[in-house]
């Protein structure tokens, strides 16, 4: 694997953390108190300010994973940092997709009368969740870093096919799920206004900030763990040399790499 890539600067994580927590706090005030209840759905609609940004950031996470994977697979840009970025973003994508599903179920119960229904949007989102869980599992099964990165990159690009299917599922099939609130039929035509729109837009910003924070932090952790594995491997080889034992030409990475 080529290209080690540097860890982000240490002050970035705490600064982004403070900004994220602050933005999420403001979102709670806007979503729970400032925005009025929906005329039809009442207060249950207040879950929209979390559900929609979480779903959007799940798309962004998987798009970053696909981009990182494509850059890793392309010989000219192949570098370990793209694989790390893809891995870190995929984990966050799974986190946001899980939140999207859970929040959608909590919203669906008072509005639809059920937590779950075999609707195209819900099913394709659940498939997306399990596809990327599989991607994360795949990363844990292969020890060789190059083979792992290559296989994971191919898997990520295949899994990404489901993202547009999830997004357009409400237009392609008859669905219980409502169409996009901001982009119905792909046109920028917000179906809400006033404080509701402000709260939703703030939700996007707060979740984007939170995603950036967790992504930088998670990326830094991958760099740290990879550095530790290489360090331990170097030490083991050095000890073998000191003891006069033969050192294999190709050293296998240790567990957890």
């Amino acid at each position, binding site marked *: 694997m080529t290209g080690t890539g540097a860890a982000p600067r240490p002050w970035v994580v705490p600064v982004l953390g403070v900004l994220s927590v602050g933005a999420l706090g403001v979102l709670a005030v806007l979503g729970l108190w400032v925005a009025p209840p929906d005329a039809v759905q*009442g207060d249950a609609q207040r*879950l929209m300010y979390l559900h929609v940004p979480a779903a959007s950031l799940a798309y962004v996470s998987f798009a970053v994973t696909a981009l990182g994977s494509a850059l890793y697979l392309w010989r000219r840009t192949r570098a370990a940092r793209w694989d790390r970025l893809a891995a870190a973003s995929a984990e966050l994508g799974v986190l946001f997709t899980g939140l999207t599903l859970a929040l959608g179920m*909590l*919203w669906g119960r*008072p509005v639809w009368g059920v937590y779950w229904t075999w609707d195209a949007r819900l099913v394709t989102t659940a498939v997306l969740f399990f596809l990327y869980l599989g991607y994360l599992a795949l990363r844990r099964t292969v020890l060789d870093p190059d083979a792992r990165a290559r296989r994971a990159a191919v898997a990520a690009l295949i899994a990404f096919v489901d993202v547009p299917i999830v997004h357009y599922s409400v237009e392609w099939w008859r669905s219980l799920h409502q169409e996009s609130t901001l982009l119905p039929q792909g046109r920028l035509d917000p179906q809400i206004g006033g404080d509701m729109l402000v709260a939703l837009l703030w939700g996007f910003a707060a979740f984007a900030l939170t995603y950036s924070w*967790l992504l930088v932090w998670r990326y830094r952790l991958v760099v740290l763990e990879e*550095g530790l594995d290489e360090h*331990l491997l170097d*030490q083991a080889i050095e000890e073998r040399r000191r003891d006069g034992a033969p050192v294999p030409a190709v050293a296998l990475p240790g567990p957890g790499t």
Partner: protein
Amino acid sequence: MEHAGYVVTGWIGTGVVLSAYAVWVERRTRRARRARAGADGSR
């Protein structure tokens, strides 16, 4: 607030999930740093 149970569960649950993830990453970071310091010290 009508449907308060669902709304409050969703909001608090989101906070708990995001916090738990952040704590998990922080713990793993500390563990990796400690392991690195231990490995350097054992040389």
